Protein backbone atom coordinates (compact mmCIF):
# COMPACT_ATOMS: atom_id res chain seq x y z
CA UNK A 1 0.00 0.00 0.00
CA UNK A 2 1.06 3.55 -0.73
CA UNK A 3 -0.21 6.47 1.28
CA UNK A 4 -1.20 9.43 -0.89
CA UNK A 5 -2.87 12.77 -0.35
CA UNK A 6 -6.38 13.53 -1.50
CA UNK A 7 -6.22 16.65 -3.70
CA UNK A 8 -9.71 17.62 -2.53
CA UNK A 9 -9.72 17.26 1.26
CA UNK A 10 -5.99 16.77 1.85
CA UNK A 11 -6.76 13.60 3.79
CA UNK A 12 -4.84 10.37 3.41
CA UNK A 13 -5.72 7.81 0.74
CA UNK A 14 -4.42 4.26 0.62
CA UNK A 15 -3.65 3.00 -2.87
CA UNK A 16 -2.37 -0.45 -3.93
CA UNK A 17 1.32 -0.54 -4.88
CA UNK A 18 0.48 -1.96 -8.28
CA UNK A 19 -2.31 0.50 -9.10
CA UNK A 20 -2.37 1.43 -12.77
CA UNK A 21 -2.36 5.00 -14.03
CA UNK A 22 -5.96 6.05 -14.64
CA UNK A 23 -7.35 3.78 -11.97
CA UNK A 24 -10.25 5.43 -10.19
CA UNK A 25 -10.36 5.50 -6.40
CA UNK A 26 -13.17 6.91 -4.34
CA UNK A 27 -12.09 8.76 -1.23
CA UNK A 28 -14.13 8.86 1.96
CA UNK A 29 -14.68 12.58 1.43
CA UNK A 30 -16.70 11.59 -1.64
CA UNK A 31 -14.13 12.66 -4.22
CA UNK A 32 -13.55 10.44 -7.27
CA UNK A 33 -9.81 10.37 -7.80
CA UNK A 34 -7.54 8.92 -10.44
CA UNK A 35 -4.05 7.54 -10.08
CA UNK A 36 -1.24 9.39 -11.84
CA UNK A 37 2.27 8.00 -12.28
CA UNK A 38 5.04 10.42 -13.12
CA UNK A 39 8.65 9.14 -13.13
CA UNK A 40 7.59 6.16 -11.06
CA UNK A 41 5.98 8.36 -8.42
CA UNK A 42 2.31 7.95 -7.71
CA UNK A 43 -0.13 10.73 -6.94
CA UNK A 44 -3.84 11.45 -7.26
CA UNK A 45 -5.87 13.95 -9.19
CA UNK A 46 -9.57 14.57 -9.58
CA UNK A 47 -11.09 11.98 -11.93
CA UNK A 48 -12.95 13.11 -15.02
CA UNK A 49 -16.72 13.11 -15.32
CA UNK A 50 -18.11 10.76 -17.95
CA UNK A 51 -17.25 12.43 -21.24
CA UNK A 52 -19.65 12.92 -24.09
CA UNK A 53 -17.41 10.80 -26.30
CA UNK A 54 -17.00 7.95 -23.86
CA UNK A 55 -18.27 4.55 -24.80
CA UNK A 56 -17.61 1.27 -26.47
Amino acid at each position, binding site marked *: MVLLKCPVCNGEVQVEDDA*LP*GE*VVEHECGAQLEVVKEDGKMSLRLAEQIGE*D*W*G*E
Partner: protein
Amino acid sequence: MRIGILYDIPRWEERNLIEEAKKLGHEVKLEYTKDSIFLTNERREQEIDVFIQRSVSHNKALLSSLVMESLNFTVINDYNTLIRCENKAITTFLLSKHNIPTPKTGIAFNPEKALELANKIGYPVVIKPIEGSWGRMVAKAQDEDTLRSYVEYQSYSIQKFRDSYYIQEYVNKPNRDIRIFVIGDEVPVGIYRVNDKNWRTNTALGAKAEPLKIDEELRELTLKVREVIGGFFLGVDIFEDKERGYIVDEVNGVPEYKNTVRVTGFNVSQFLIRKIEELIKK
Protein backbone atom coordinates in the same frame (compact mmCIF):
# COMPACT_ATOMS: atom_id res chain seq x y z
CA MET B 1 4.86 -11.14 -28.52
CA ARG B 2 5.14 -7.70 -27.05
CA ILE B 3 1.61 -6.39 -26.73
CA GLY B 4 0.93 -2.71 -26.21
CA ILE B 5 -2.37 -1.73 -24.64
CA LEU B 6 -3.62 1.79 -25.31
CA TYR B 7 -6.05 2.70 -22.56
CA ASP B 8 -7.32 5.52 -20.39
CA ILE B 9 -9.40 3.85 -17.66
CA PRO B 10 -8.36 0.39 -16.52
CA ARG B 11 -11.59 -1.58 -16.30
CA TRP B 12 -12.13 -5.30 -15.77
CA GLU B 13 -11.47 -5.90 -19.48
CA GLU B 14 -8.06 -4.22 -19.50
CA ARG B 15 -6.92 -6.02 -16.35
CA ASN B 16 -8.13 -9.32 -17.72
CA LEU B 17 -6.30 -8.74 -21.02
CA ILE B 18 -3.07 -8.04 -19.15
CA GLU B 19 -3.50 -11.15 -17.04
CA GLU B 20 -4.35 -13.45 -19.94
CA ALA B 21 -1.55 -12.08 -22.12
CA LYS B 22 0.96 -12.75 -19.37
CA LYS B 23 -0.43 -16.25 -18.82
CA LEU B 24 0.20 -16.97 -22.48
CA GLY B 25 3.79 -15.84 -22.07
CA HIS B 26 3.53 -12.43 -23.72
CA GLU B 27 4.99 -9.19 -22.54
CA VAL B 28 2.58 -6.32 -21.96
CA LYS B 29 3.39 -2.66 -22.27
CA LEU B 30 0.72 -0.26 -21.07
CA GLU B 31 0.29 3.05 -22.83
CA TYR B 32 -1.89 5.37 -20.76
CA THR B 33 -3.22 7.58 -23.53
CA LYS B 34 -4.30 10.38 -21.24
CA ASP B 35 -0.76 11.20 -20.11
CA SER B 36 1.08 10.23 -23.29
CA ILE B 37 2.58 12.47 -25.91
CA PHE B 38 2.25 11.39 -29.49
CA LEU B 39 4.68 12.77 -32.06
CA THR B 40 4.94 12.38 -35.82
CA ASN B 41 7.81 10.18 -36.92
CA GLU B 42 8.77 9.53 -33.37
CA ARG B 43 11.03 6.54 -33.02
CA ARG B 44 9.39 4.36 -30.47
CA GLU B 45 10.52 1.03 -29.17
CA GLN B 46 9.90 -0.94 -32.32
CA GLU B 47 9.68 -4.22 -30.41
CA ILE B 48 5.95 -3.81 -29.87
CA ASP B 49 4.30 -6.35 -32.16
CA VAL B 50 0.76 -5.12 -31.83
CA PHE B 51 -1.26 -2.50 -30.02
CA ILE B 52 -4.72 -3.21 -28.65
CA GLN B 53 -6.88 -0.09 -28.50
CA ARG B 54 -8.91 0.05 -25.29
CA SER B 55 -9.50 3.77 -24.68
CA VAL B 56 -12.96 4.63 -23.38
CA SER B 57 -12.74 8.11 -24.87
CA HIS B 58 -13.63 7.81 -28.55
CA ASN B 59 -11.45 10.74 -29.38
CA LYS B 60 -8.40 9.33 -27.66
CA ALA B 61 -9.04 5.93 -29.21
CA LEU B 62 -9.39 7.29 -32.73
CA LEU B 63 -6.36 9.54 -32.62
CA SER B 64 -4.02 7.25 -30.74
CA SER B 65 -4.82 4.40 -33.14
CA LEU B 66 -4.11 6.73 -36.04
CA VAL B 67 -0.78 7.87 -34.60
CA MET B 68 0.38 4.33 -33.92
CA GLU B 69 -0.58 3.28 -37.43
CA SER B 70 1.35 6.23 -38.82
CA LEU B 71 4.36 4.83 -36.98
CA ASN B 72 3.70 1.53 -38.77
CA PHE B 73 2.40 -0.41 -35.84
CA THR B 74 -0.47 -2.84 -36.16
CA VAL B 75 -3.38 -1.56 -34.08
CA ILE B 76 -6.54 -3.44 -33.12
CA ASN B 77 -8.84 -1.79 -33.95
CA ASP B 78 -7.43 0.51 -36.55
CA TYR B 79 -8.44 4.10 -37.14
CA ASN B 80 -10.62 3.38 -40.16
CA THR B 81 -12.67 0.83 -38.29
CA LEU B 82 -13.08 3.08 -35.28
CA ILE B 83 -14.35 5.95 -37.43
CA ARG B 84 -17.01 3.68 -38.90
CA CYS B 85 -18.09 2.46 -35.46
CA GLU B 86 -17.97 5.60 -33.39
CA ASN B 87 -20.22 7.62 -35.65
CA LYS B 88 -23.60 5.89 -35.74
CA ALA B 89 -24.62 7.62 -38.97
CA ILE B 90 -21.52 6.32 -40.74
CA THR B 91 -22.18 2.81 -39.43
CA THR B 92 -25.83 2.75 -40.45
CA PHE B 93 -25.47 4.22 -43.90
CA LEU B 94 -22.46 2.04 -44.74
CA LEU B 95 -24.30 -1.09 -43.62
CA SER B 96 -27.43 -0.21 -45.54
CA LYS B 97 -25.37 0.58 -48.62
CA HIS B 98 -24.15 -3.01 -48.46
CA ASN B 99 -27.69 -4.35 -48.02
CA ILE B 100 -27.29 -5.29 -44.41
CA PRO B 101 -30.64 -4.83 -42.64
CA THR B 102 -30.65 -1.81 -40.31
CA PRO B 103 -33.52 0.03 -38.67
CA LYS B 104 -35.07 2.49 -41.11
CA THR B 105 -32.95 5.52 -40.26
CA GLY B 106 -32.56 9.08 -41.39
CA ILE B 107 -30.55 12.13 -40.65
CA ALA B 108 -31.57 15.80 -40.79
CA PHE B 109 -29.72 18.98 -39.97
CA ASN B 110 -32.32 21.26 -38.47
CA PRO B 111 -35.25 20.85 -36.08
CA GLU B 112 -38.05 21.27 -38.66
CA LYS B 113 -36.49 18.78 -41.01
CA ALA B 114 -36.00 16.39 -38.10
CA LEU B 115 -39.77 16.40 -37.50
CA GLU B 116 -40.45 15.97 -41.21
CA LEU B 117 -38.05 13.04 -41.26
CA ALA B 118 -39.81 11.40 -38.32
CA ASN B 119 -43.14 11.67 -40.14
CA LYS B 120 -41.61 9.83 -43.07
CA ILE B 121 -40.34 7.09 -40.80
CA GLY B 122 -43.51 6.84 -38.71
CA TYR B 123 -43.94 6.94 -34.96
CA PRO B 124 -42.75 5.77 -32.50
CA VAL B 125 -39.22 6.84 -33.38
CA VAL B 126 -35.92 6.68 -31.58
CA ILE B 127 -33.54 9.63 -31.51
CA LYS B 128 -29.89 9.12 -30.58
CA PRO B 129 -26.73 11.14 -30.25
CA ILE B 130 -24.58 10.29 -33.28
CA GLU B 131 -21.78 9.48 -30.90
CA GLY B 132 -22.32 7.92 -27.53
CA SER B 133 -22.78 4.71 -25.69
CA TRP B 134 -24.32 2.79 -22.83
CA GLY B 135 -27.75 4.01 -23.93
CA ARG B 136 -26.97 7.54 -22.85
CA MET B 137 -29.58 10.01 -24.15
CA VAL B 138 -31.15 7.46 -26.46
CA ALA B 139 -34.82 8.44 -26.40
CA LYS B 140 -38.10 7.12 -27.77
CA ALA B 141 -40.76 9.52 -28.98
CA GLN B 142 -44.34 8.24 -29.30
CA ASP B 143 -45.53 11.31 -31.15
CA GLU B 144 -44.47 14.58 -32.72
CA ASP B 145 -45.02 16.55 -29.55
CA THR B 146 -42.53 14.47 -27.64
CA LEU B 147 -40.02 14.44 -30.46
CA ARG B 148 -40.22 18.22 -30.76
CA SER B 149 -39.08 18.51 -27.16
CA TYR B 150 -36.20 16.10 -27.64
CA VAL B 151 -35.12 17.89 -30.76
CA GLU B 152 -35.24 21.21 -28.95
CA TYR B 153 -33.20 19.84 -26.07
CA GLN B 154 -30.62 18.52 -28.50
CA SER B 155 -30.42 21.82 -30.36
CA TYR B 156 -29.49 23.62 -27.14
CA SER B 157 -27.20 20.88 -25.85
CA ILE B 158 -23.42 20.93 -26.04
CA GLN B 159 -23.25 17.66 -27.97
CA LYS B 160 -20.64 17.58 -30.65
CA PHE B 161 -23.23 16.73 -33.30
CA ARG B 162 -26.07 18.79 -31.88
CA ASP B 163 -27.12 19.94 -35.35
CA SER B 164 -27.36 16.40 -36.70
CA TYR B 165 -30.61 14.64 -35.88
CA TYR B 166 -30.22 10.90 -36.12
CA ILE B 167 -33.68 9.38 -36.07
CA GLN B 168 -34.87 5.86 -36.67
CA GLU B 169 -37.90 3.64 -36.49
CA TYR B 170 -38.57 1.96 -33.17
CA VAL B 171 -37.99 -1.72 -33.81
CA ASN B 172 -40.58 -3.76 -31.97
CA LYS B 173 -38.09 -6.24 -30.61
CA PRO B 174 -38.69 -8.68 -27.77
CA ASN B 175 -37.50 -7.63 -24.32
CA ARG B 176 -33.90 -8.18 -25.41
CA ASP B 177 -31.24 -7.58 -28.00
CA ILE B 178 -28.15 -9.46 -29.08
CA ARG B 179 -24.52 -8.53 -28.51
CA ILE B 180 -22.26 -10.71 -30.60
CA PHE B 181 -18.49 -10.60 -30.98
CA VAL B 182 -16.21 -10.75 -33.97
CA ILE B 183 -12.70 -11.85 -33.01
CA GLY B 184 -10.33 -12.13 -35.96
CA ASP B 185 -12.28 -14.00 -38.63
CA GLU B 186 -14.55 -15.78 -36.17
CA VAL B 187 -17.80 -15.18 -34.30
CA PRO B 188 -17.13 -17.21 -31.19
CA VAL B 189 -19.51 -15.83 -28.58
CA GLY B 190 -22.49 -13.63 -27.90
CA ILE B 191 -25.14 -12.81 -25.33
CA TYR B 192 -28.72 -11.69 -25.08
CA ARG B 193 -29.27 -8.56 -23.06
CA VAL B 194 -32.65 -8.85 -21.44
CA ASN B 195 -34.61 -6.09 -19.79
CA ASP B 196 -38.28 -6.44 -18.90
CA LYS B 197 -38.63 -2.86 -17.71
CA ASN B 198 -36.59 -0.70 -20.06
CA TRP B 199 -36.76 -0.87 -23.86
CA ARG B 200 -33.10 0.13 -23.82
CA THR B 201 -31.33 -3.17 -23.20
CA ASN B 202 -27.88 -1.85 -22.33
CA THR B 203 -26.36 -3.78 -19.45
CA ALA B 204 -25.21 -0.41 -18.17
CA LEU B 205 -28.94 0.31 -17.68
CA GLY B 206 -29.60 -2.89 -15.78
CA ALA B 207 -30.24 -5.49 -18.51
CA LYS B 208 -29.44 -9.09 -17.62
CA ALA B 209 -26.91 -10.93 -19.76
CA GLU B 210 -27.80 -14.43 -20.93
CA PRO B 211 -25.81 -16.82 -23.12
CA LEU B 212 -26.70 -16.88 -26.81
CA LYS B 213 -26.65 -19.83 -29.15
CA ILE B 214 -25.23 -18.55 -32.41
CA ASP B 215 -27.07 -19.85 -35.45
CA GLU B 216 -25.65 -19.91 -38.96
CA GLU B 217 -27.67 -16.92 -40.14
CA LEU B 218 -26.45 -14.80 -37.26
CA ARG B 219 -22.86 -15.85 -37.81
CA GLU B 220 -23.00 -15.01 -41.50
CA LEU B 221 -24.65 -11.68 -40.88
CA THR B 222 -22.04 -10.76 -38.29
CA LEU B 223 -19.19 -11.65 -40.64
CA LYS B 224 -20.83 -9.56 -43.34
CA VAL B 225 -20.89 -6.63 -40.92
CA ARG B 226 -17.19 -7.15 -40.35
CA GLU B 227 -16.54 -7.08 -44.10
CA VAL B 228 -18.17 -3.66 -44.33
CA ILE B 229 -16.87 -2.10 -41.11
CA GLY B 230 -13.45 -3.76 -41.01
CA GLY B 231 -11.63 -4.42 -37.77
CA PHE B 232 -10.45 -7.39 -35.77
CA PHE B 233 -12.39 -7.17 -32.54
CA LEU B 234 -15.99 -5.94 -32.72
CA GLY B 235 -19.12 -6.02 -30.59
CA VAL B 236 -22.14 -6.03 -32.90
CA ASP B 237 -25.59 -5.17 -31.53
CA ILE B 238 -28.49 -6.87 -33.29
CA PHE B 239 -32.27 -6.70 -32.91
CA GLU B 240 -34.75 -9.44 -33.67
CA ASP B 241 -37.84 -8.42 -35.58
CA LYS B 242 -40.78 -10.80 -35.93
CA GLU B 243 -41.27 -10.17 -39.64
CA ARG B 244 -37.86 -9.09 -40.84
CA GLY B 245 -35.54 -11.21 -38.72
CA TYR B 246 -32.17 -9.86 -37.69
CA ILE B 247 -31.55 -6.11 -37.88
CA VAL B 248 -28.16 -4.59 -37.10
CA ASP B 249 -28.34 -1.72 -34.63
CA GLU B 250 -24.72 -0.72 -34.27
CA VAL B 251 -21.11 -1.80 -34.04
CA ASN B 252 -18.75 -1.18 -31.14
CA GLY B 253 -15.05 -0.84 -31.86
CA VAL B 254 -13.80 -1.03 -28.28
CA PRO B 255 -16.27 -3.54 -26.89
CA GLU B 256 -16.73 -4.35 -23.25
CA TYR B 257 -17.14 -8.03 -22.44
CA LYS B 258 -17.13 -8.53 -18.70
CA ASN B 259 -20.75 -9.74 -18.63
CA THR B 260 -20.22 -11.96 -21.65
CA VAL B 261 -17.37 -13.76 -19.92
CA ARG B 262 -19.34 -13.99 -16.71
CA VAL B 263 -22.42 -15.67 -18.17
CA THR B 264 -20.84 -17.77 -20.95
CA GLY B 265 -17.56 -18.73 -19.32
CA PHE B 266 -15.93 -17.99 -22.67
CA ASN B 267 -12.46 -16.49 -22.28
CA VAL B 268 -12.68 -13.53 -24.66
CA SER B 269 -9.26 -12.07 -23.77
CA GLN B 270 -7.48 -15.36 -24.34
CA PHE B 271 -9.29 -16.00 -27.63
CA LEU B 272 -8.43 -12.50 -28.81
CA ILE B 273 -4.76 -12.89 -27.95
CA ARG B 274 -4.59 -16.29 -29.68
CA LYS B 275 -6.14 -14.76 -32.79
CA ILE B 276 -3.61 -11.94 -32.66
CA GLU B 277 -0.80 -14.49 -32.42
CA GLU B 278 -2.07 -16.02 -35.69
CA LEU B 279 -2.26 -12.60 -37.30
CA ILE B 280 1.25 -11.61 -36.30
CA LYS B 281 2.78 -14.91 -37.45
CA LYS B 282 1.41 -14.41 -40.97
